[in-house]
């Protein structure tokens, strides 16, 4: 007998997630190709460094739109910490760094996921804003010393987003087998759901919103 499958994401959620993910990855790829002279060769796929810049600029539009949709969709669930339960989880490092028989239970999103959401939301907005200044300097009468910092902050955004992104990728795939299904099919095996989102599972069970795939 196979494990029961529980519906955990809607089609809209998955659409926004992947639009954000693909545009973000493309921006990282083209961005580091321009940031590190040693990685200029990454532009070969796009007809050289100039093509890479053009793709970077246009992808930014998709990123900006999906970022706003993501913030609008998730900020209530993933943007606010709930104490003290989140604090308990942080003190236990979510059970990821040392062995724990019982990981403190959190709601739909654990503090790690919330931190990732906040990092992407805030740094993403920073990237969009600084990027806009970089693209259209002629429309913004900023002093030149302010312009210097625009580039530095754009780099700071990458510095923060990329590590968060990679940990998200790892924990969302092989680090927690079964979790990636949430963003592919929208269904998660019940035991995995109960392990990763125990409180949310209980809430759905209690409220009768638990949808099991027939």
């Amino acid at each position, binding site marked *: *007998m196979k*494990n029961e499958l529980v519906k955990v994401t809607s089609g809209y959620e998955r659409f926004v997630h992947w639009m954000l993910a693909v545009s973000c990855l493309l921006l990282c790829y083209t961005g580091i190709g*321009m*940031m*590190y*002279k040693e990685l*200029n060769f990454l532009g070969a796929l796009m007809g050289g*460094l*100039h093509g*890479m*810049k053009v793709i970077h600029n246009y992808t930014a539009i998709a990123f900006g739109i999906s970022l706003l949709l993501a913030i609008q969709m998730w900020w209530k669930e993933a943007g606010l910490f709930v104490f003290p339960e989140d604090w308990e989880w942080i003190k236990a490092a979510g*059970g*990821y*760094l040392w062995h724990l028989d019982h990981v403190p239970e959190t709601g739909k999103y654990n503090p790690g996921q919330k931190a990732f959401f906040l990092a992407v939301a805030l740094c993403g907005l920073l990237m969009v804003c600084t990027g806009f200044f*970089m693209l259209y*300097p*002629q429309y913004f009468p900023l002093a*030149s*010393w302010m*312009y*210097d*910092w*625009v*580039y*530095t902050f754009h*780099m*700071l955004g*990458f*510095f923060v987003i*990329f*590590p968060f992104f*990679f*940990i998200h990728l*790892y924990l969302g795939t*092989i*680090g*927690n*087998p079964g979790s990636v299904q949430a963003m592919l099919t929208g269904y998660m095996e*019940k*035991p*995995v759901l*109960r*392990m*990763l989102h125990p409180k949310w599972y209980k809430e759905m069970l209690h409220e009768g919103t638990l949808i099991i795939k027939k």
Partner: protein
Amino acid sequence: MTEKIKLYDASKCTACRGCQLACKQWNSLKAGQTQHTGTYQNPPSLQPNTYMIIHFQDYVAPEGDARWLFRKEACMHCTTAACVTVCPSGALYYNKEFKTVGLNREKCIGCKECVAACPFDIPKFDAKTEKVYKCDMCESRISNKMNPACVKACPTGALKWIDKDEAMKIADDRVQMLGGDANVYGDKLVGGTHLMYVLKEKADIYDGIKKNVKLPLSVTIWKTWLRPLSLLAAGGVIGGSFLHYILHGPHKPHPEHYDNDEKKQGGA
């Protein structure tokens, strides 16, 4: 292979603007859109197709007399150049022979990073060609043992293209001779500039001149700190995730996560 300096002696300059025209001619630059600002200074500022201009300034000295001040504005060719530091494509580079700052426009992708970084506000971006333009010290001429076009055109000897040691000596002698507030500008900025001035007045009297110029702190943080740190952080999480996977292992549901009937046959 000697480092060379373009020395501009403001005290010898008559503002004939022959240099400005010669620059246009050698670099095949068309005239740009301009506007009248009430002085002979034309165009009012550098443009994508104007690599150098002569500044005209009416200055009333504290002594009461009016003085007409001239200054040549163009790329200063820094020894530690912010533009070369930030350029992502290698379009901006140091000339190996003379230590000036060259610009290979084929490589320029028009990211405008140099425009923001330059402490002298020299590079100009042309939205039509999507490229950046600035003086390259007539690289095509100097690498063939000729003087830059502006130097060649100068009728008064206000512009010279000479070895650095000689330039320093000439500049110091000239400052001594002029006396008063005369001074050398550029030798102490950003590791020494390769366009240097001899000025008659204190530097801060000149309109639009940059004081206390150094490599912007933001560029240092960006290129010297964040650049390697980002790579370290990225490599750290990739390596860390791998270590986590092989040492700690993935998280799998415990027996408590299974319903009773599933627990009997579901593993873990």
